[in-house]
């Protein structure tokens, strides 16, 4: 008979394939469907929870409610047409999706990107990371209950700060969310005059307000009660599940693609990788807060030294069909705010080779959700909501 571990002892791996027939026959098990329409699931996601009283015994997650068949679409559209579609996958950090996609196509076609374009991409990636983590912070505070930070105050404040970054993106690209600013071989939009001043103003404003949020949330006693020791994902479990990003680093594994396998211009600057050892919700939050600060530092270092030179390796092509893919396989990965976002592409498909034959998105959010059946048993339902918020899944990217 499987014993229910208490929350404090829930450090061990639960068995996700637990046969409920072997569970205590005296227990009055209840099935609770958390989702698919539930504010704490950050989209449409269903968790089937088997409860013994308030304690979770077994978890069966269901994904796919947002499945749009992006990978099938990739086989029908040409490579150039795909870039704006990838903005919608991880709709909280669209820049990263575009970057991983164009990097995979550049590897496939053997295109070398000029330094100025790589530099601007680095800058956009770091600004996007700040925006994405700010949205996570606000949503996480909401998940933990409105009482923290005075109702939805922190949520609204984080959205206000994220707005500053969306404004500088709008100045650059003309769009607030779905930018379509990357091209195969370079960038589409050049940095406008006076942009650096606006970026400085935005990140200065965010930096001065960060300590305020930490007083609101991170040092709040209720918050510490809700997150310390809850939902421990240790480094070994993370690696087995293929989890990367802040969740892996919070479990004590020092791994970050920006530093360890540099792409763009990350080999020219020093990235200080934040880690924690506890692996619980509190550690994941601390790692993300440190990453916001690190990104602010990187943006400050990058913004004033944008090198001169061309922004693209070649002229923009006139028709989508002009792109002819080399046959072969290519893979490119970026460190998105949620972990390793990789694109595996096989070239030479329809439209006379202008479409990929097969394209697979290795989405960090799908891997991170795989941890729930292992860590949730032993916790209460309210803890499940806290854990789900702390791993920061984006459903558009999970289901694709």
């Amino acid at each position, binding site marked *: 008979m499987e014993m229910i571990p208490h929350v404090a002892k829930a450090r061990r791996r639960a068995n996700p394939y637990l046969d409920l027939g072997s569970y205590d026959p005296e227990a009055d098990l209840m099935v609770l469907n958390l989702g698919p329409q539930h504010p704490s699931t950050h989209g449409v996601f269903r968790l089937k929870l088997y409860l013994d009283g308030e304690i979770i015994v077994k978890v069966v997650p269901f994904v796919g409610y947002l499945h749009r068949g992006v990978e099938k679409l990739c086989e029908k559209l040409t490579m150039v047409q795909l870039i704006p579609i990838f903005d919608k996958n991880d709709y909280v950090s669209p820049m990263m999706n575009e970057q991983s996609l164009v990097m995979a196509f550049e590897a496939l076609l053997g295109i070398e990107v000029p330094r100025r374009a790589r530099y601007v991409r680095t800058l956009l990636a770091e600004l996007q990371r700040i925006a994405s983590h700010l949205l996570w912070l606000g949503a996480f505070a909401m998940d933990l209950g409105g009482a923290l930070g005075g109702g939805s105050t922190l949520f609204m404040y984080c959205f206000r700060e994220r707005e500053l970054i969306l404004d500088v993106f709008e100045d650059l690209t003309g769009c607030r969310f779905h930018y379509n600013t990357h091209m195969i071989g370079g960038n589409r939009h050049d940095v406008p005059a006076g942009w650096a001043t606006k970026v400085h103003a935005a990140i200065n404003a965010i930096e001065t307000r960060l300590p305020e949020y930490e007083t609101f949330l991170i040092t709040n006693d209720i918050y510490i009660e809700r997150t310390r020791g809850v939902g421990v994902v240790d480094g070994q479990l993370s690696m087995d599940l293929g989890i990367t990003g802040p969740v892996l680093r919070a479990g004590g*594994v020092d791994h970050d693609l920006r530093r360890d396998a540099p792409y763009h211009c990350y080999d020219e600057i020093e990235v200080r990788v934040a880690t924690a050892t506890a692996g619980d919700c509190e550690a994941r939050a601390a790692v993300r807060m440190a990453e916001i600060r690190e990104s602010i530092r990187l943006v400050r270092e990058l913004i004033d030294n944008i090198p001169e030179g061309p922004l693209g390796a070649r002229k923009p092509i006139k028709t989508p069909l002009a792109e002819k893919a080399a046959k072969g396989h290519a893979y490119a990965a970026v460190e998105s705010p949620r972990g390793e976002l990789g694109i595996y592409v096989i070239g030479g498909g329809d439209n006379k080779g202008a479409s990929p034959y097969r394209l697979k998105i290795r989405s960090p959010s799908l891997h991170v959700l795989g941890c729930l059946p*292992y860590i949730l048993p032993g916790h209460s339902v309210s803890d499940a909501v806290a854990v789900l918020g702390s791993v920061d899944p984006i459903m558009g990217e999970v289901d694709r």
Partner: protein
Amino acid sequence: MKLLGAENSEEVQKLLIEQFEAMENSLGGPPVVAVVRHLELAKKLRDEYQYRIFGFVVAAHYPAPAKDANGVGELIRVSYGLRSVGKGTKLATWQVCIPVDGAIPTLVPLFAGADWQEREQFDLVGVRFDGHPDPRRLMLSEDWQGHPLRKDYAIDTKVHPWR
């Protein structure tokens, strides 16, 4: 015989060719390893070469060629990737090639993350994984007909609205 943008390290390439008799795929991509030695390779890479982060499983469907003189038939090629940890991280990749009705031993005993990835590839491409503990569809509903990422599945295939 390589994955563009993420080549195997020299020692892994040597291991694949010398010990696992990996073959070149004429269509490109990572080296092809025999299905029977696939699990052994993953275990060796994880335990001896420290490729400990689970990467990806990608299956691609290849219909039978129009003039099939050699009797190649309908194939599914599955690429695997594992990642090493920390500074100078590398990707170790290999391919497995099976007939369309064949099966591949599952990686779930070695990497828990293979569970959902293999379910997704089964769901969308229709490749079977031997010994998988929970072989259900992942993205589509249980009663879905066919596998959408097969090349013979038309993109405008009619779907009943209540699915």
